[in-house]
């Protein structure tokens, strides 16, 4: 427990000076607040920008932050220093993952406040965002583990996040993209956030994808560990 809390506290301090990671947590919530209050188009759905940016947030922030943090620690050999001081790979991943999750939930709170969610709607929103964040976080962990340095992590995480973040939005404009997007969890998260009826289908697709990503994560971890 001491090891996990140390990694967590280290991450809190380190990220305050890491603009690349910090901006991931702040960008979309701030954009949502600004757009939600500044843009008013007739017949625009309720909380359009909050919901749009929430899904983009899930596709981008946890994945990029997690992969960037892990790959930087590998590149600069600070992870090795932690491991030599008795921190296991799992403890490191839990400490870092907890930090990224809490930061994402703080962003989620900003979205929720901007959207004026209350009661069951608020709980439902947080549950959906939590689920999406965890899936992205595991995917980010797998990318970080598989990459030797920040450059190679970014070369994987940037295209992946672009696809995951923008697919739900683009699916509004093209039926073929929509058909393809249905196979990706951000689209299902988007449907859930927008109150779609097909809840069970959304949950099933998201869970199935979470299991596939978890499998990828475990294979990466077994193959490379945190070396």
């Amino acid at each position: 427990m001491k090891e996990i809390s140390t990694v967590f506290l280290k991450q809190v301090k380190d990220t305050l000076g890491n603009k690349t990671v910090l901006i991931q947590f702040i960008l979309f919530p701030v954009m949502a607040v600004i757009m939600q209050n500044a843009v008013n188009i007739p017949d625009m759905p309720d909380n359009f920008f909050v919901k749009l940016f929430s899904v983009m947030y899930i596709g981008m922030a946890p994945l990029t932050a997690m992969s960037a943090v892990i790959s930087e620690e590998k590149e600069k050999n600070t992870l090795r220093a932690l491991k030599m001081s008795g921190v296991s790979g799992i403890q490191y991943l839990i400490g870092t993952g907890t930090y990224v999750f809490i930061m994402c939930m703080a962003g989620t709170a900003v979205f929720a406040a901007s959207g004026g969610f209350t009661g069951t709607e608020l709980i439902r929103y947080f549950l959906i965002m939590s689920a999406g964040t965890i899936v992205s976080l595991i995917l980010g962990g797998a990318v970080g583990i598989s990459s030797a340095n920040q450059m190679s992590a970014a070369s994987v995480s940037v295209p992946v996040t672009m696809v995951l973040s923008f697919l739900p939005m683009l699916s509004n404009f093209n039926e073929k993209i929509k058909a393809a997007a249905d196979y990706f969890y951000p689209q299902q998260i988007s449907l859930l956030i927008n109150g779609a009826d097909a809840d069970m289908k959304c949950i099933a697709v998201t869970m199935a994808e979470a299991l596939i990503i978890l499998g990828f994560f475990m294979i990466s971890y077994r193959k490379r560990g945190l070396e």
Partner: protein
Amino acid sequence: MIKTVSAINIEKAFGGKRVLCGVNIEAEMGKITGLLGPSGAGKTTLIKIFTGQLEADSGICRIKGKDIGALKKEDKRRFGIMADELGVYDRLSCYENLRIFARLYGLSKEDIQNALKNVGLENDGKTRADKLSKGMRCRLRLARALMIHPEILFLDEPTSGLDPTAAEKIHRLILDECARGTAVLLTTHNMAEAQKLCSSVSLLCDGRIVESGAPDDICRRHNSSRILRIHLSDGRDIELSQNEGAAESVAELIRTGKADSIHTSEPDLDAVFKELTGKELAI
């Protein structure tokens, strides 16, 4: 007597390439043992095996009589390790860098302040690590290794790339730590450093120990020329072969006050290494 650190017949290969071949080495408490060799000789690999970062293909590696594989987490916490490949957090201050590891080892804030003071960084506690000079970063890494008051200190090229003044500071810290009774295992390709710090050295080349012993003993053993160099009071230098005749000549020069200084001509470790391997040490 149980040696603090011992490696017996260690073998290690990477992808078919043998990096360590039958390496034997020992280190004792209160002594500095040097592993001397050029880049790629296998020094870092051996340190990694000792610190549990790598597993040897065969051979026995023991710390205080216990096999490396049988060491518990608590045992490993008595190691201090300083290596280039153990980085520091650039965005955190010196104090915060040490604070992370102090938390892991259950050390107090006072321990951190003492560690900074010991390496001369007490006024740089709030300085970000990326603002430190190379020598100061080196001292920060050493502070991290020494903060836990290790019983065994592994130093992998501790002064590599440092200027002589910064290297001298590191040397003093290592000698102080050794005087405290810590067993120090140091790798270097710097012959002068090994000669100055180490009570015994092993010369490593292509994964094999080619010579070992006290630095002066090694140099004496390889003194094949056996020549005396005499600086005379009139400014001239003469060389005499070390035989019975030379003894009389030297005695005469001393008696008549003509000899200013007399030197034997043992090779240094660099020359011994070259003689044994045909390779330069400092590459």
